[in-house]
């Protein structure tokens, strides 16, 4: 029961932060709300018993990716960013029913899936030797090839980011106007 109350606390925190991410106009406030939401989601992971994913969420998301976003925000031309409206307001109002319909579809699909959910085979092992150990042993045996593929994707992404972000000799003017 205490665990459920903590889960509700972190969930409310995450949802309030997500509303802040969507509604605030200044990008600095948006990145702070996003950081708050990531920390709340890490708390949800801890209450679910996934301490390894929660710790990596804090380390990778809430530190590395958030700092990266802050670095990029320093490259924004601010005088232009604050001059225009930060939201597409009419488009948002018009798309809200479609987003609600997507919610409804996901509710139906999830509740159908809950009925068909299989029984766990690692529950005794998790209770005996701990969650992180079971995650590591399954990750490095059954999903080892996928792990290596993810590392290759990280390498390719790094090379691509360096190639895209390098300085070019000429600039391209907008010839469509």
């Amino acid at each position, binding site marked *: 029961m205490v665990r459920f109350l903590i889960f509700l606390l972190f969930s409310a925190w995450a949802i309030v932060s997500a509303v802040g991410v969507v509604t605030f106009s200044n990008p600095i406030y948006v990145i702070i709300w996003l950081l708050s939401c990531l920390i709340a*989601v890490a708390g949800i992971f801890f209450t679910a018993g996934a301490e390894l994913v929660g710790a990596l969420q804090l380390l990778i998301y809430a530190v590395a990716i958030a700092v990266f976003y802050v670095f990029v925000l320093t490259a924004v031309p601010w005088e232009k960013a604050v001059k225009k409206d930060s939201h597409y307001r009419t488009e948002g109002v018009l798309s809200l029913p479609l987003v609600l319909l997507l919610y409804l579809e996901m509710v139906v699909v999830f509740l159908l899936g809950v009925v068909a959910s299989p029984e766990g085979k690692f529950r005794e092992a998790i209770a005996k030797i701990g969650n992180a150990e079971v995650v590591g042993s399954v990750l490095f045996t059954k999903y080892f090839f996928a792990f290596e593929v993810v590392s290759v994707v990280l390498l390719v992404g790094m090379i691509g980011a360096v190639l895209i972000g390098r300085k070019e000799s000429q600039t391209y003017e907008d010839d469509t106007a």
Partner: protein
Amino acid sequence: MKTIPLEAYFVVSMILFGLGVLGLIVRRNLITVLMSLELALNAVNVAFVGADAHMGLVEGQIFALFIIALAAVEAAVGLGIIIAIFRYRHVESTDEITDMRG
């Protein structure tokens, strides 16, 4: 571990995912669009980990780790593209990038 119902995780995940999709639609600044995308990815992670805690598996946590790694790659490449757009075209709003309009 069974005190939290699976539906609670899914409801939180759906609300976060819907807010992320709404942010993708209504945001004008390119960087805040990417932040909304991170919100949607986090919502999927919540669903994976919640289903894991309910079913006593660890596959969802492993895929959550993969999603975190791919989100890092996506942030690196996407923000590189956005910086390139800033630098060469001097636009930062999503409705000013109209090069591929027919």
